[in-house]
């Protein structure tokens, strides 16, 4: 598949702090590429370098096969960015804001009007086109922010934490929108520190920590990288030491602990061991209550790769 963004050995230092440490990324056309990392891991810095807003110390950035520079206007024309902070003019109405920013890309008035109308439809702000940003609620403001970034129909759209401090309903709305843009042919780069979101929409994910990519792949590939598998917990009325030891012999079971009336069983590798566990409980006449199964999350991936949890 065609490579849209290619970053090689990108290094960015702020005095003592190394924000990006030999970062390498390849993003292919048609992907929703997730850039996941805790706060301060270098996501926004990476984006800013990609956009040629920031100077960097070392490395190479190519977009659509050409080197990205501040004056690479033919590349810039293909990119749309939705910034983390709402970046609109307070004095202009919803319509005028979108029109203004779209006007920086599309100089033909007729064509622009069509694009602006489409963008307004896309984010569902049709009822608010005469409103000033100050009158919009937080969620609507985010939608306006998105409309300003995508009105010119870019081939590559970068979303930099678009859902921070957004209510759940608007968040879903945004995520749905991203999927729709992708299905219409745009390549998406999506940065977030919400793992659930990234898992939900991204086709490929890079996990960033301290300016480096510590893992990259589809979410399944990422989860395969770690030893940990499904975790099953069973509420029981009682279980003996022998029975617990016996449990470990069930194929796929990596460990079993009993505490506070609950057995916690960790499975190896792929999921699918729950049937054997239930069978074992029935065979041994162990009365059980609620059974819960928990799949490994990207947090577990992060924990195992870095030794710390994501939200530290």
């Amino acid at each position, binding site marked *: 598949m065609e490579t849209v963004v290619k970053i090689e050995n990108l290094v960015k230092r702020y005095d003592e702090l190394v924000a990006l440490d030999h970062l390498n990324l390849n993003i292919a056309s048609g992907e929703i590429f997730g850039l996941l990392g805790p706060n301060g891991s270098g996501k926004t810095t990476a984006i800013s370098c990609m956009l040629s807003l920031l100077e960097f110390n070392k490395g190479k950035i190519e977009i659509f096969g050409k080197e990205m520079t501040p004056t690479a206007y033919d590349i810039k024309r293909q990119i749309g960015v939705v910034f983390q902070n709402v970046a*609109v003019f307070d004095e202009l109405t919803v319509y005028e804001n979108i029109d203004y920013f779209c006007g920086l890309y599309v100089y033909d008035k007729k064509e622009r009007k069509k694009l602006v109308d489409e963008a307004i439809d896309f984010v569902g702000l049709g009822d608010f086109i005469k409103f000033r940003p100050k009158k919009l609620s937080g969620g609507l403001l985010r939608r306006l922010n998105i409309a300003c970034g995508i009105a010119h129909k870019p081939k590559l759209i970068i979303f930099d934490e678009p859902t921070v401090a957004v209510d759940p309903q608007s968040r879903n709305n945004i995520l749905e929108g991203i999927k729709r843009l992708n299905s219409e042919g745009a390549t998406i780069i999506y940065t977030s520190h919400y793992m659930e979101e990234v898992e939900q929409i991204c086709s490929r994910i890079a996990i960033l920590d301290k300016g480096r990519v510590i893992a990259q792949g589809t979410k399944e590939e990422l989860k395969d990288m770690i030893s940990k598998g499904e975790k099953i917990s069973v509420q029981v009325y009682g279980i003996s030491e022998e029975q617990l030891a016996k449990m470990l012999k069930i194929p796929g079971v990596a460990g079993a602990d009993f505490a506070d009336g609950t057995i916690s069983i960790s499975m190896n590798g792929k999921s699918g061991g729950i049937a054997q566990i239930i069978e074992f409980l029935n065979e041994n006449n162990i009365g059980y209550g609620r059974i819960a199964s928990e799949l490994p999350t990207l947090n577990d991936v992060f924990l195992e790769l870095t030794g710390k949890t994501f939200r530290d």
Partner: protein
Amino acid sequence: MFFDIFKCRFKSLLREKSGFFWTLAFPLILSTLFFLAFSNLNKIDEFEKIKIAVADVQKAGDGFNAALRNSGLFEVSQTDLEQAKKLLSEGNIKGYIECKDANDFELFVQKSDFEESIIKMFLDSYRSSYSSAEKIIASNPASAKDVINSLSEEKTYINEMPSGNGNSTVIYFYSLIAMVCILSSTYGCSEVIKIQADQSTCAARINISPSHKLKVFMASISAAFIFEFFVTLIVTAYIKFVLRIDFGTSMGFILLLCAAGCFAGISLGAMIGAVVKKPEQFKIGVLVSVTIFFSFLSGLMYENMKYIIQKNAPALAFINPVSLVCDGFYSLYYYDTFDRYFLNVSILAAMGILFSAVTYFVLRRQKYASI
């Protein structure tokens, strides 16, 4: 594209209400107040005949009486001493003269102001003349008649030259307009902040677009300039046509001066916006306070401040843009030649070009060390 951005920015400026207050409403209100308060100020020093009383004038003689009359300085009531005292204590006269002898008087007043001083000087010079006459006649008694004749002859010894009838309160209005011009620096500063990606997110959006940054900037700064220019013209027109403050003759020169002032102001603000890396509020605050201080130095709060600076620290007047605009108006109003006016306009233009050049070199940079 240029025109679209220009239109958009112009619309934004029109909608920013708080900016309107300081650049438009406030100067209009202040100029109205100046107008109401200063309308009589110029009469403060106007000469009017001084009301005095003379007691026992017969003791001084006809010569004194004639001199009093011919001097053209006084409105004399001839009274007795008691009456004179009463008039003075009631404030009806500025002073009374008690005549004791042909050349011996005593003056009674309540204050040491100019009116009282003029009465005293009249008496002093009467006594001096009397004494001179005595001495000259003593040296040559035959000349007595000539001496007395030439003494009573009203003859001027100094040629009064025509000099301009200027009203110094106009300086308040001129420096007010000048302040409006230079306050446009706040707009220049905001426009730069809106184009520098390390200063605002809207600017980042502009920086990543395929439009040339300096072209976008030229469009938005032109919008700010035209906007401010119109605001300045509204204020000037109000002062000239509604308050009827004298601006001298030529409308074209007034327009040119306003344009030069706004240009210097906008580019000053743009330079500060580009060079100083501080929050917007801080930069605007600094610009406003510096402008107000400059306005103070050019006479906004006290008109003579302009002269004091010009006389004691002329260099300061030449680097103060507010003072340059104010002085430009003053030159148009009061001088017969245009040299000084063109000097002011040229310095303003040069300042504007210098500030713009600095701004250009900072803005040319397209990548930032940090955002």
